Every structure is written in structure tokens, then in C-alpha cells.
């Protein structure tokens, strides 16, 4: 009776240990630098910023309406952006619509870079003081957002966008009807 009950207690430390080990093991593979976007499912915050490509014009969230679009936050000062640039070029050649946000950058430098390395963007707007980035929840460049035809944020990818990210993270949601969206 009392003996039986006590004998089961022996396993408690083991259970405790196993639970802790499993918890820690599962957390090992996680990247603590990735913060889930708080803006997921929301519309892109309003902005009206000068276009880098079309002098005198401004870009607003209307640019996202009616098309699946990638919003790529980049800058010339950002080394990782240079690394992801060739892949963005390839996506653009495949017909993926990419809008660029030139984040806390000099418009002239950005224009010069696009002229030499090629331009994957259908349009680029200049977020010179980073206020749009702050509004969107950007915490470092590059970041890439999947925007649906309603202008809502479906997904955020932090860091360089690579073939693998495109296939594993973005393609599963790309051009798929999102929850609550009317087709």
C-alpha cells in the first residue's frame, strides 16, 4: 500500500529529467534571433514614399492591390542584401513581383547599385529615415514579406532570401488563398 505508492515516486526525478531534456533538445535547433512578425495577417501599414525608379512619383500600399508581391526591405549598406540580390534577380526573371523598400539608405547610392547590379524590383521606394520600417516591425535588413492581393502580410522572412527559403517557406503560401480572403 504505502510501499507501493512510494515506489512509484522513484520515477519522478527521471520523469522530470526526461521532460527537461526533451524541452531543451527541442529548443536547440531554434534560432533565437527570429521573432515572429506581429504584423502577420494585417494590412501593410500606410506609407507614401518617393519612388527611386520614377522621379517625382510616390509609392503607396496601393501597389500591392490585386497581385501577390514580395516586399523586400534592403539597403546598400547591408552586406546580406548583396548576397541575396542575385536570387532576387532570378525570381524577378521568373515573373515574381518584387517591390523594394530602400531602408535607411541614400537614394542615389541605391539607384547606382541597381544600375550596376541589375534591378529585380518593379518599384523601389525610399524609406530614408526608417519610419516605414519601424511601422512594419523591421529590425534589420534584409527582410522579405509576402503580401497577398488584398495588401495583407502573409509571411515574413528575416535574413537573406535563398532558394531553400523560397521553396520551403514562401511557395507553400504563395498565391494560395489566405484565410478570410475573398477570391
Amino acid at each position, binding site marked *: 500500500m*504505502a*510501499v507501493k505508492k*512510494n*515506489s512509484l*515516486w*522513484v520515477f*519522478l*526525478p527521471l520523469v*522530470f*529529467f526526461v521532460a*527537461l531534456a526533451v524541452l531543451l533538445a527541442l529548443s536547440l535547433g531554434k534560432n*533565437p*534571433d527570429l*521573432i*515572429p*512578425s*506581429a*504584423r502577420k495577417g494585417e494590412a501593410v501599414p500606410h506609407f507614401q514614399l518617393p519612388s527611386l525608379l520614377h522621379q517625382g512619383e510616390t509609392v503607396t500600399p496601393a501597389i500591392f492591390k490585386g497581385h501577390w508581391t514580395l516586399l523586400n526591405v534592403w539597403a546598400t549598406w547591408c552586406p546580406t542584401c548583396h548576397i541575396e540580390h542575385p536570387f532576387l534577380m532570378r525570381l524577378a526573371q521568373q515573373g515574381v513581383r518584387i517591390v523594394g523598400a530602400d531602408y*535607411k539608405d541614400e537614394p542615389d547610392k541605391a539607384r547606382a547599385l541597381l544600375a550596376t547590379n541589375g534591378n529585380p524590383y518593379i518599384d523601389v521606394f525610399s524609406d530614408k529615415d*526608417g519610419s516605414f*520600417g*519601424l*511601422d*512594419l*516591425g*523591421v*529590425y*534589420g535588413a534584409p527582410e522579405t514579406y509576402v503580401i497577398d492581393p488584398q495588401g495583407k502580410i502573409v509571411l515574413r522572412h528575416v535574413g537573406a532570401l535563398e532558394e531553400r527559403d523560397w521553396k520551403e517557406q514562401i511557395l507553400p503560401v504563395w498565391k494560395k488563398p489566405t484565410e478570410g480572403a475573398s477570391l
Partner: protein
Amino acid sequence: MKRLARLLLVSCVLGGMLVCTHVDADIAANSAALWKVATLSVVDNGSDGSSAAGNSSSTDVYQFKDPALRDRFLQLTKVLRCPKCQDQSIGDSQAEIAADMRAKTAELLRQGKSNDQIVHYFVARYGDFVTFDPPWRVDTALVWLAPVGVFLLGLWLVIVQLLKARRRMQEPEEKTEDSSC
């Protein structure tokens, strides 16, 4: 039996300590951030109430007409967490984004926003991650209740063991070998 009880007790206390150290480490990191924020320059004798020049994070200077506003600025820059340099507050971090967030905090303060509104502004953009003071919700209850639960569990075990030990001392005639497995 006695050995088992001791093993159990020790393992639970160790488990409890593990959890508590984790929580303590968070608090310690936080208070370290609180301490270091004093190094952020805040000028409280400003007359115009506008932010002074300088966009480098280590040298940015904010001026507030109202000392209360200055205190709230310090308070908020301690409690808001830098998304880039995790475990540093925005008052402590030299990351670009922290500088931007400090500027935004000052701007919102001058607009007359409350502390809650300002924290909410950042939480809406960066998630709960951005505050060192997590909210009380169903999905965050564990964060708040786990340390208390582990403490109570430990307390309960200690009391049970003490009562058992006392009972054993009061009945020395009881055989000990029959209770061990």
C-alpha cells in the same frame, strides 16, 4: 525509503533551482539593462523640448522640458527590449533599431501618449517580444506561475519530509526495513 525520499527531495529542489535560476537570469539581465541605461544621455534642462542632433545611437541626446517626461523616457527605454540585440533594452543597446525606437519613444511621449500606449505601439509592431514585462494572458500564464508552482512544490515536499521524519523519531520502535523497496 529514507534514501529515496532524500533523492526525490534533492532532485525536486535542483529542478526548482533550475527554473528559478532561469527566471533570475532574465531578471538579472533586465536589471543590468536598467543599470546601464543611466549611461544614455538625457538632458532635462532643455528649453525647447526638441530632440538634439545626432543619429548615432551612442551619442543621441534627448531633451525634455518636463522632468516627469524625462523620467518616463528613462523608464520606457528600460522596459522596451531591442529586437536586434536581444536581452538588451533599447536604452542599453547601440543597435540602429534601438536608436530608432528611442527616437520614436521620445516622439510619442511628446505627443502626450501614455506609457501603456507607447508600449502597445511597439508590441503591435514587434510582438510581446519587445517588452521585458510580459503581459498576463492565458498563453503567458506559465511564465508567471511556474516559479510560484515550483516553489510551492518544493515547500510541500520539505514539509512532508519533515513531518515524516518527526513521526519516525516519535515511533522509534517501528521497523525501518519493511518500508523500503
